[in-house]
C-alpha cells in the first residue's frame, strides 16, 4: 500500500485547510491542522510500526485504520507527536469488537467512546486527571480524544449528520479523554483492575451516553456518599434502560474514594454491589408503557433481536443495569471533594484496554 496523498489548492494555511475540510466533511466543525507529510512523519517516528499496518477495519464504512491514516487524524486533531502512541493504542482498543465502535458511530443516542489513560504516560504526556479533567483546557485530553473521533469520522465513516444521525449528538463527541488519579484509587487504578501492571501505560475505551454530576456537600459517611451516587444513577427512561445491560462508569473524587475505602469497602465488588442495589427504581415510577415493556417485554440481544428473556426485575424493582460487574469505578478530579460523575453507557459495549510505549522508553 502506498501513501495516500491529497493535493490541495491553497497556501497550506490553517484557514485554507479548515475551509477544505468543511467542504470535504473531514472534520468535527472545529479548526484542524493540515496533515502534511512532514507532520504525519513526525507522528510515525514515535512508534515502531509500519505506516501501512492495518490496526482494524472500522464500520460502518469498512475503512482501513492504517497507522498512517491514524497519524493523519492525530495531526488534524492537534496532537503533539508525543501523544501518538496513546492515540494508536486508543484506536487499537476501540477496534476491539467488545467496544462496538460501529454502533457508537451510528446510534441515534449520544453514546461516545470515553478514554481513560493510566500509567506513567499520564504525567509524561500531561494528561489531566485533576481539576477540569473533562475540560476545558489541557491539550492532551482535548486532542487525544478528538483524534479518536476524527478516526471515527474519516476512517470509519461516521460522518456527522450524513451517516451518523444521533438525534441530538453530544458535546462529549468532540473529545472525551481523561487521566486517572492512579495513586489515589484505593482499589487500584482501572488498568490494574483490568489485569495490567501499574507501571504500564494504558488506554481504556469506556463509553458515555450521559454525564451526570453528583454534588453532595452534606454527606460525611461512606454510605451517604454511595447513596448519593446511586440516586444519581436512577432513571425511568434512557436508551440504556431499554436494553438493560449497559456498562456504567463512576468517576469518584479522591476524597470520597478514601472515605469509602476506609469505611470498610476494601473490595471494589462491594462498592459495585451497593451501587447496583441502591440505584434500582420501583416499577411504579415508570410510565405505563414502560411498565408494560419491563414486565412483558423481551430484552434485546447484542444483535438487536429480542432475547426471549424478560427484563431483570428484582421483584418490583428495576436495576439500572443487569449486574454489578457492569460498573466501572475510577478516581479523578480536583480535591474539592464534593462531586462525582456518573456516565451511563448504552447496551452491549464493553471496555477494552491496550498498553503502549512512549518513544523515550523504546
Amino acid at each position: 500500500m502506498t501513501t495516500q496523498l491529497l493535493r490541495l489548492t491553497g497556501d497550506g494555511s490553517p484557514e485554507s485547510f479548515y475551509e477544505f475540510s468543511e467542504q470535504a466533511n473531514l472534520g468535527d466543525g472545529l479548526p484542524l491542522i493540515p496533515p502534511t507529510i512532514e507532520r504525519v512523519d513526525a507522528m510515525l517516528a514515535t512508534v515502531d510500526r509500519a505506516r501501512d499496518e492495518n490496526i482494524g477495519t472500522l464500520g460502518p464504512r469498512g475503512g482501513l485504520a492504517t497507522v498512517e491514516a491514524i497519524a493523519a487524524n492525530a495531526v488534524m486533531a492537534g496532537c503533539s507527536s508525543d501523544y501518538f502512541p496513546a492515540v494508536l493504542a486508543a484506536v487499537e482498543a476501540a477496534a476491539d469488537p467488545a467496544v462496538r465502535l460501529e454502533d457508537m458511530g451510528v446510534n441515534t443516542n449520544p453514546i461516545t467512546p470515553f478514554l481513560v489513560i493510566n500509567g506513567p504516560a499520564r504525567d509524561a504526556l500531561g494528561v489531566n486527571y485533576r481539576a477540569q479533567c473533562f475540560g476545558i483546557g489541557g491539550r492532551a485530553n482535548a486532542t487525544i480524544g478528538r483524534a479518536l473521533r476524527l478516526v471515527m469520522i474519516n476512517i470509519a465513516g461516521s460522518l456527522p449528520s450524513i451517516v451518523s444521525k444521533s438525534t441530538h449528538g453530544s458535546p462529549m463527541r468532540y473529545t472525551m479523554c481523561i487521566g486517572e488519579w492512579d495513586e489515589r484509587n484505593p482499589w487500584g487504578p482501572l488498568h490494574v483492575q483490568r489485569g495490567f501492571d501499574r507501571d504500564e501505560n494504558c488506554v481504556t475505551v469506556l463509553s458515555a451516553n450521559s454525564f451526570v454530576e453528583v454534588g453532595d456537600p452534606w454527606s460525611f459517611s461512606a454510605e451517604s456518599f454511595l447513596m448519593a451516587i446511586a440516586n444519581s444513577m436512577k432513571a425511568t427512561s434512557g436508551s440504556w434502560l431499554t436494553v438493560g445491560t449497559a456498562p456504567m462508569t463512576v468517576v469518584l473524587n479522591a476524597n470520597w474514594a478514601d472515605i469509602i475505602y476506609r469505611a470498610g469497602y476494601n473490595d471494589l465488588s462491594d462498592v459495585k454491589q451497593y451501587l447496583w442495589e441502591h440505584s434500582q427504581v420501583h416499577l411504579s415510577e415508570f410510565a405505563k408503557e414502560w411498565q408494560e415493556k419491563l414486565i412483558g417485554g423481551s430484552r434485546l440481544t447484542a444483535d438487536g433481536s429480542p432475547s426471549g428473556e424478560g427484563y431483570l426485575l428484582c421483584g418490583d424493582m428495576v436495576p439500572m443495569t443487569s449486574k454489578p460487574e457492569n460498573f466501572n469505578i475510577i478516581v479523578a478530579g480536583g480535591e474539592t471533594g464534593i462531586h462525582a460523575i456518573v456516565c451511563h453507557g448504552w447496551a452491549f459495549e464493553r471496555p477494552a484496554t491496550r498498553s503502549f510505549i512512549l518513544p523515550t522508553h523504546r
Partner: protein
Amino acid sequence: MTSSTLESYAIIDPRSSVAVVEQTQSVALTTLQGKTLGIVTHGNWRSWEYFCDRLENFLSGPGQDVQHQRYQDERPYLDERYDQIVREVDAAVVGLGNCGSCTAQVATAAAQLAARGLPVLVVATEGFKSLAEMTLEYRNYPNVQVFTLPAEYEVMEERDLVRIADERVVDIESALTSKAI
C-alpha cells in the same frame, strides 16, 4: 485571483481506503407472482407493524398471487434461521431501519440473506438510507436496494401510517425486481 490561491500542497488523506470486498451477485428476480415473500422484522417499531400488515393485506388482495411469511423471532436470528428463511421464501423484505443501530442490523440481516442467494430489499426511513447503503456496501452487497419510508413515519397518526403503507406497498415488487440484487 491571487497567486497564493494557485499554490498547492499535499496532505496525507485521513480517510484511508476501504476494505476490498468481493462483490456478490444474488439471483435476479423477475416477478413476485407465484412466489413467496418473506417479511423479516428486526427491531421493534410500531410503524413497521402497520407497514407489514398493509403489505400482507395487499399481497392477499385482488390480482396478486404472492404468498407471504412473517419472521419475527423472540430469539436472535442465527445462521440456521437465515438458512430456513431462504428455504421457505423466494425473496424477502427486511425492516425497519429507523435508528442507527437497527439500520445497521437490518442491513446486516439483508446481507446475510443476500449471501445465501435470496433477492432481498432493505426497508428504512429516509434519514437512515445513507447508513443502510454504507452498511450494505461494507457487507459486500451494495446492489441490495434500500426502499425508503418517510423520515417521520414512526410518529405519524394511525391513518397516515395506513395511507402511506398502502401507497408504498404497491412498489415493493418493482423494487425487488428492478435490477439484479
